[in-house]
């Protein structure tokens, strides 16, 4: 399904419906993240919690450019990727609560979401760890002679890992159908882009590996969608990888344990006020009632929290399940 986004001339009818759906999904992610943060403050959620507030357009824009049979693989900041892919917010929230009904049965937590049915191939806690997996998934798509494309999302900080160079080289060499999408939110934890990257134009970093780069405004869902659509369809037909840099900004801290001493409060304020992907996109659409969308999202999330609260923790007896395919322990 390729819909046009508002502002293009083609297919305004379908495009408008789609645009409303994008907005609705971005609002759902924003509200989900906010609530997850509140649940963390209440100690309902443990571990690390990385929120994608501010980055919603990069998520929804990319996911809506994908087909159902395409694979998505992401990082530890991936509640939104699961939600955009269609995973029930109840199961995402339950995972945060560590409940047996969570997407990963309470074994993964916030950083390790997964939904095999929707081909969301996971969130990963190791920075750069998902890139090789994406190449393997794409190799599998070609091996099985399908048209599937893999979209591999990672951060600007991850672009400094060895796996970035290794995987881009292999993907180009073997002509693997991967769109490498670097979500450049301009920080790797507290280290600003220009302090960690000698070549901060990250989309140019693939050139030396034979992977051409594109860039999009990750605060503009229309632009993100358009560039990702172009990239995905080009990769689908030409079976060779591309790198897309989506420039965005994280409105909240890196994780909940971040006093944000590495950036100016005014900068954050400026980005929030001028570049909010939700507000700005809503303003482009006629006839949308953001308050109503907020309310609807709040209801969905209320139900998700209730579901997570009421769900059981995994039983102690289940602790070894799935370490091995046979179920129980295999001793050495």
């Amino acid at each position, binding site marked *: 399904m390729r819909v046009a986004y508002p502002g293009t001339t083609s297919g305004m009818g379908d495009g408008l419906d789609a645009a409303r759906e994008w907005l609705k999904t971005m609002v759902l992610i924003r509200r989900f993240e906010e609530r997850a943060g509140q649940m963390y403050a209440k100690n309902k959620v443990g571990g690390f919690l990385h929120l994608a507030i501010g980055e919603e357009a990069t998520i929804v824009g990319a996911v809506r450019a994908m087909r159902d049979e395409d694979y998505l693989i992401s990082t530890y900041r991936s509640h939104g990727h699961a939600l955009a892919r269609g995973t029930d917010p109840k199961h995402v929230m339950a995972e945060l609560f560590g409940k047996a009904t969570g997407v990963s049965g309470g074994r993964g937590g916030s950083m390790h979401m997964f939904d095999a049915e929707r081909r969301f191939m996971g969130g990963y806690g190791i920075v750069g760890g998902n890139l090789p997996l994406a*190449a393997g998934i794409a190799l599998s798509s070609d091996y099985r002679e399908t048209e599937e494309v893999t979209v591999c999302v990672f951060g600007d900080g991850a672009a400094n890992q060895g796996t970035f160079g290794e995987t881009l080289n292999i993907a180009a060499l073997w002509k693997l159908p991967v769109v490498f999408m670097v979500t450049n939110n301009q920080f790797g934890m507290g280290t600003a882009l220009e302090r960690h990257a000698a070549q901060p134009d990250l989309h140019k970093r693939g050139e030396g590996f034979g992977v051409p780069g594109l860039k999009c405004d990750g605060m503009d869902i229309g632009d993100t969608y358009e560039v990702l659509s172009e990239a995905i369809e080009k990769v689908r037909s030409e079976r060779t990888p591309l790198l897309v840099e989506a420039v965005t900004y994280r409105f909240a801290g890196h994780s909940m344990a971040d006093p944000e001493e590495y950036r100016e409060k005014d900068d954050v304020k400026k980005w929030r006020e001028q570049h909010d992907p939700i507000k700005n996109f809503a303003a482009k659409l006629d006839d949308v009632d953001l308050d109503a969308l907020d309310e609807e999202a709040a209801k969905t999330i209320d139900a998700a929290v209730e579901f997570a609260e009421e769900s059981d923790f995994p039983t102690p007896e289940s602790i070894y399940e799935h370490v091995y395919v046979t179920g129980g322990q295999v001793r050495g």
Partner: protein
Amino acid sequence: MAELRYREALNQALREEMERDERVFIIGEDIGVFQGAFKVTQGLLEEFGGKRVRDTPISENTIVGVGVGAAMTGLRPIVELMTVNFSLLAMDQIVNHMAAIPYMFNGQVQVPMVVRMPQGAGHQLGPTHSHCLEAIYLHVPGMLVAVPSTPADAKGLLKAAIRDDNPVVFIEHESLYGAKGEVPDDDDLIVDFGQAAVRREGEDVTIVGISRMAVTAQKAAEELASEHDISAEVIDPRTLRPLDLDTIVESVRKTNRAVIVEEGWPHGGVGANLAALIQEHAFDYLDAPIKRVTGADLPMPYSKPLEQIAFPHEPQIVEAVKALL
């Protein structure tokens, strides 16, 4: 029965499993055109083509990760790493991804793949090419570990590994590639994981040999019998996870003494683990402390006389056994 070299037996296993299941393919450095650093994959590129026998760049971590991604989506990859030392560059993909993914995602996907790698000293390759690191892999839950020491086991265990739905670390031994042995003519020769082989029966002491040390232990046992009138039972666990502890414990209960021989380092080694398990299960049967014979506690030296004393040979095993009796 055919007499085959260890490397030929491995090659047969790969060939037969690739013929049997189209989802099986091999990736690794110089496995195709070059025919494999140790020639284990000889002829496979010609037979199966570049789609199924794929040379990779020198990117250990990423090629293991490629295997994991392919395994998660329905294929059955075999990744060859040139030696166990180089597998350390792939530790992230092996430990944090391959072994963890089935559990981390609650069984939504399996990772049916094999990572093959050879290990071992004896070729004067110095501190970056000679180690035995099976203890490191034994340490990691979520995967199986095989350490075959004969051609028949090499073949049967590799076939079993390829058919297993768990990820497997399959550790070959460089010094055994040329070793010959009888291998049953059987397309379906499977050696089940978790079944130790009693290489030699005996009454006075149990010697457990890991990887190539199972062979060295057998030679030492022959010497113990002929020169010292000591009857040693030699056990080769063949797989470290699952471990056939029953066979080992049963033997120790009979002989009342145990010596564990491994080529790897002593601290946190396979023998350290096994000694703990034996005393847990056969404490009252032991007539002497459990002894370990291990590789020296150092990065492997290059110089031949130093290298030779840095990993166990028959005399050290003989001495260890005599000290217990």
